[in-house]
């Protein structure tokens, strides 16, 4: 009887092996535990197979496809594993475009599966048809359209491999509906074949020696650490290297946490809103060792003033980043961890650079980040400091884009890697809140704080429903200045205070709004109430939305004005 039942089961399994079943099984084979998805016509077979498979992984139904992709990005950023997205054809796929571009710019491993109309009607402007391959080619690391059910397992394997190795990035797999419906009876194609894709992991020892030589001769060395260090999980090696030779370290926006922010060798973030010590360090150093950063324009300022006296060494896994923006003297292609390990193996007689250290660290103490306290509403910078203290610097912090993002980057000190989730390259408003959902799912036991502006939050706040549904204890801190603050700041500084369309006079009542989703919500407009409130919020077991009314016309300082060099920062104040 038992055998019979088993045979019956096997037979049933056989008859039900459609392309969609093969697809779900391929995801399970990749150890996928969370999928962010939204059903629709073209993915009906896939959702039916998911139903048949009886929840092989958790499926998070966001309320807009943009929410899916940002959540997947947040998940990928904190776990290091690829985020997985399923969306339907046409509008489902096109709604993902912003997030795919965001993942591409910030090198996040995300694998996106989109439905497509049946192969027979592709090209006929069928209902919900969009040229997903055409649209996503420039914004993905790679993309595929499945044309035969037997290649489905191979493509899924290749997609995960490409997304998560080398320089990570998004990969799109477009699955026509008939392929998902087709019976997968024949032999399946499982082994992947990528002769054109072999990222260099081990750096060339010759280049490492050159770098070590340059370091031994340098009188004013500086390390710049980017997100590449995080992807390579090389923070420990970076710390050992910096401490071994007493090298000051600055990070990019996306590299925050790759080196402990409270370490005495840390100069904090460099770039447009970086610290004076970091930017002057870059301006005055004679050897700049960039590890896993891509010399983005928000970091470099005017290129002719960027590290003018320095020999530039650049360690990057993507050879195309080396020499792209900044002329590089010592290129090192390879994984940051491998490169740092190799550097640590080389014993270097360093030139005494105590004087240099004295100078940069006196800059650090003499010209710290500063702000003026308000005696009316809450000072946003102070608020971020309070968030830092109340969460003991241990939270996973996600942000949107704008002033609150820069204040968070400045005033929240990240001592550990993979706790900072922000949209750097693309600068996507609406990123922070859904990214927090993904981050919380990726790190279920950690405190996740989503710091958002009142503008950006309104772009994706429909995902509050997901917080409620899964009871995710994300704490949303709305830094509410009733304005699109950063754009308003630029209008104030560079457009003679002509506040064209940047003041948000008609904001919703965020408390009532969150409550309508069944989520606890609070409003605070007085600094006195903040510490107790944050303590209460952070210890609450469940989601909370806090509407923090901050000073409306505060600006982010210091600042490198557009077109100027990093040494020409404005808004720098010396401590008395």
């Amino acid at each position, binding site marked *: 009887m038992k055998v019979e039942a088993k045979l019956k089961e096997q037979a049933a399994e056989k008859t039900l092996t459609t392309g969609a079943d093969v697809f779900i099984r391929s995801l399970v084979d990749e150890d996928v535990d969370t999928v962010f998805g939204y059903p629709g016509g073209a993915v009906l077979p896939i959702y039916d197979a998911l139903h048949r498979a009886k929840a092989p992984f958790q499926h998070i139904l966001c309320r807009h496809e943009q929410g899916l992709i940002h959540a997947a990005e947040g998940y990928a950023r904190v776990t290091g594993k690829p985020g997985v997205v399923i969306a339907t054809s046409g509008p489902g796929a096109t709604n993902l475009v912003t997030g795919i571009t965001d993942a591409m710019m910030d090198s996040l491993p995300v694998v996106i599966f989109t439905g497509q109309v049946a192969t027979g009607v592709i090209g006929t402007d069928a209902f919900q048809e969009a040229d997903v391959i055409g649209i996503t080619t420039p914004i993905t690391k790679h*993309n595929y359209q499945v044309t035969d059910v037997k290649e489905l397992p191979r493509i899924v394997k290749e997609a995960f491999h490409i997304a998560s190795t080398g320089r990570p990035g998004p990969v799109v797999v477009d699955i026509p509906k008939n392929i998902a419906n087709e019976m997968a009876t024949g032999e399946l194609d499982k082994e992947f074949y990528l002769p054109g*894709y072999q990222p260099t992991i081990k750096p060339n020892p010759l*280049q490492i020696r050159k770098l070590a030589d340059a370091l031994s001769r340098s009188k004013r060395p500086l390390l710049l650490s980017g997100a590449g260090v995080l992807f390579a999980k090389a923070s420990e090696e970076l710390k050992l290297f910096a401490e071994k030779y007493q090298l000051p370290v600055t990070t990019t926006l996306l590299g925050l946490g790759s080196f402990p922010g409270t370490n005495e060798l840390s100069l904090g973030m460099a770039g447009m809103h970086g610290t004076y010590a970091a930017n002057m360090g870059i301006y005055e150093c004679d050897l700049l060792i960039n590890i896993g950063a891509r010399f983005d324009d928000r970091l470099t300022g005017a290129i002719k003033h960027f590290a003018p006296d320095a020999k530039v060494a650049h360690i990057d896994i993507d050879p195309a980043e080396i*020499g792209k923006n900044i002329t590089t003297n010592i290129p090192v292609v390879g994984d940051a961890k491998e490169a740092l390990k190799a550097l640590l193996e080389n014993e270097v007689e360093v030139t005494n650079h105590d004087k240099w250290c004295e100078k940069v660290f006196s800059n650090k103490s003499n010209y710290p980040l500063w702000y003026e306290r308000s005696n009316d509403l809450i000072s946003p910078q102070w608020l971020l400091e309070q968030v830092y203290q109340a969460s003991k610097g241990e939270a996973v912090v996600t942000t949107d884009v704008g002033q609150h993002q820069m204040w968070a980057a400045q005033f929240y000190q990240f001592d550990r890697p993979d706790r900072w989730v922000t949209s750097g390259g693309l600068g996507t408003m609406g990123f922070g809140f859904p990214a927090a959902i993904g981050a919380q799912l990726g790190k279920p036991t950690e405190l996740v704080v989503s710091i958002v502006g009142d503008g950006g939050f309104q772009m994706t706040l429909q995902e509050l429903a997901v917080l409620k549904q899964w009871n995710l204890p994300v704490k949303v801190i709305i830094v509410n200045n009733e304005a699109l603050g950063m754009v308003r700041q630029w209008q104030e500084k560079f457009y003679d205070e002509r506040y064209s369309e940047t003041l948000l006079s008609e904001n919703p009542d965020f408390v009532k709004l969150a409550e309508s989703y069944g989520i606890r919500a609070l409003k605070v407009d007085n600094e006195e109430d903040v510490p107790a409130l944050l303590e209460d919020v952070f210890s609450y077991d469940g989601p909370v939305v806090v509407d923090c009314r901050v000073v409306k016309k505060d600006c982010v300082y210091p600042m490198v004005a557009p077109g100027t060099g990093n040494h020409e920062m404005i808004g720098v104040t010396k401590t008395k």
Partner: protein
Amino acid sequence: MKRIITAAVQNRSGVLNRITGMLSKRAFNIESISVGTSETEGISKMTFVVEISDSQKLEQLTKQLNKQIDVLKVSDITDKAMVARELALIKVGSTGQNRAEIQGVIQPFRASVIDVSKDSLIIQVTGKPDKVDALINLLKPYGIKELTRTGVTAFQRGQQPQPVQEVNTLLI
């Protein structure tokens, strides 16, 4: 400066779109591009002629091409011993009287007439781009009715004056 770059690519759907898309996204100026099958099944050969302002941009171009998953190998063969050829078809206005004269003009170029009609001739010429340019200029006075060029396709010669340096090795 004008550079001739060849790339071996996997013959998968969308590969040409992927590459031309990258070139336009990164603001590279392509003068010509030719694609065809190679000696290995499943692998195509592309030849680009690009106008590039400096060596940094050139390095970017080869690196960005290499970065494409479907691209197997990229070589800048401009400075190598090489053969580069293109084919052009030129339709010129011709009445009976000047037909012989045109024949005389094209003969040194080893071009041939491949079609004749009452009032026109189609001339086929193969060779280096400057040779093709020269012939086109000579034929202009007769009235060029239609013109099409394939773009350059190129090979390194079997024997090189010095060992070939692959683009890949420059990166490391």
